[in-house]
């Protein structure tokens, strides 16, 4: 039933987003077309069909005009239409069926532009929205700073205090030393070959 919970939630969110979009999205070109996305992380496919300018999300595979097999991490990149062919070349996604359908869905996703602040202001008013958004931005900055700080502290503890891993400069120094030794061995090998040749001649 997880598949049905996810598909009904996605359907609700997508159609709400369509209704809130800054300008009307024309989905006529995609009428009754279906894009199926099979994510490696999920055990079931998700199909997106268009009917009368609304998106219907289901787990039907029989009606797919285009099927994409990929992973969650690649999904974000799919939003940019130009990246579609690059991702196929890189082997990050496998596409079967009509590529135009995938491109048109990609254009649709790219064109989604929702003014969340205006929508929120309609419900709670301008001043509370401004306060809420400022608070949200402030919190996001603080969380970002805290995440950076925690990252730095953990690195310091692991590298310098516990010496569990080496630093980049230490790795580079080690690599340089390995290269020097390798060069010396090569030159010694050449010298030995020259000496051996001379000895065979005499």
């Amino acid at each position, binding site marked *: 039933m997880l598949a049905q919970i996810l598909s009904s939630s996605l359907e609700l969110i997508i159609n709400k987003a369509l209704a809130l979009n800054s300008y009307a999205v024309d989905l006529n070109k995609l009428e009754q077309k279906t894009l199926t996305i099979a994510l490696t992380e999920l055990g079931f496919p998700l199909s997106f069909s268009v009917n009368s300018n609304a998106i219907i999300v*289901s787990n039907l595979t029989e009606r797919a005009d285009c099927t994409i097999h990929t992973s969650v991490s690649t999904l974000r990149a799919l939003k940019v239409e130009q990246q579609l062919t690059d991702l196929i070349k890189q082997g990050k996604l496998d596409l079967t069926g009509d590529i135009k359908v995938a491109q048109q869905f990609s254009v649709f996703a790219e064109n989604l532009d929702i003014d969340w602040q205006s929508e929120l202001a309609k419900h709670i008013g301008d001043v509370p929205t401004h306060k809420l958004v400022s608070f949200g931005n402030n919190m996001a900055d603080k969380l970002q700073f805290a995440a950076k700080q925690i990252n730095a502290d953990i690195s310091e503890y692991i590298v310098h205090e516990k010496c569990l891993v080496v630093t980049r400069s230490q790795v580079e120094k080690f690599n340089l030393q390995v290269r020097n030794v390798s060069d010396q061995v090569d030159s010694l090998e050449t010298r030995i070959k020259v000496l051996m040749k001379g000895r065979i001649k005499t």
Partner: protein
Amino acid sequence: MSTSEQKQVQTNTESTTHFGYKTIDKEDKVSMVAGVFHSVAKQYDVMNDLMSFGVHRLWKRFTIDASGVRPGNKVLDLAGGTGDLTAKFSQLVGKKGTVILADINSSMLNVGRDKLRDKGLVQNIEYVQANAQYLPFEDNTFDIVTIAFGLRNVTDKEMALRSIYRVLKPGGRLLVLEFSKPDHELLNKAYDFYSFNILPKMGELIAKDGSSYQYLAESIRMHPDQETLKSMMDNAGFEQTSFKNLTGGVVALHKGYKF
């Protein structure tokens, strides 16, 4: 005469059937079931959401996902009531397809028609008042027939299954979504307690009709279990029959093909 043929004759000649736990004359069942649904029609959707905590929507989604519906298909939503399945099928078959919402009960059909029209779903839906035992359609008409929470109210289930088989196209499929028997004893007991103690009280409180919801609980218990319904479908001529338990077997989705 073989055992199965004897059974068939017995079934056909029996003049009684069940209405919940009561045994009644077959000819009375239609009007008694009609009475229940005339009474609950207006509150049907609200009660469905309350009684199942909204899970009936997921069961119906599961049915749609299992149907393999394609644009242009002709679908019969039998005992379709307030049209939940019809609404989704209508969007999925598109302008070239057709969905027929059929129900024996005029009140349910009226509620369903109003609801779907309010949603703007008018292009490809037709409404037919029909008895599942005597479907008023030509042979080999539909790609898909669904009957969700309706089969247990039908007087002669075998006859209804044969009638459905007749109207399906070769390659078409029947999906029966119906209450069934939970597969764990503990769940069964909890379900029994809920059905006989809480459900009728909710019916009394919200729909002002406790007896209809008492009938609902009783009719679920009298409905054939998963394996029996599967063999009934086999006997009606369906092939590759299978079922899938949902929510621990509280509900089961049976599927069968006509080839």
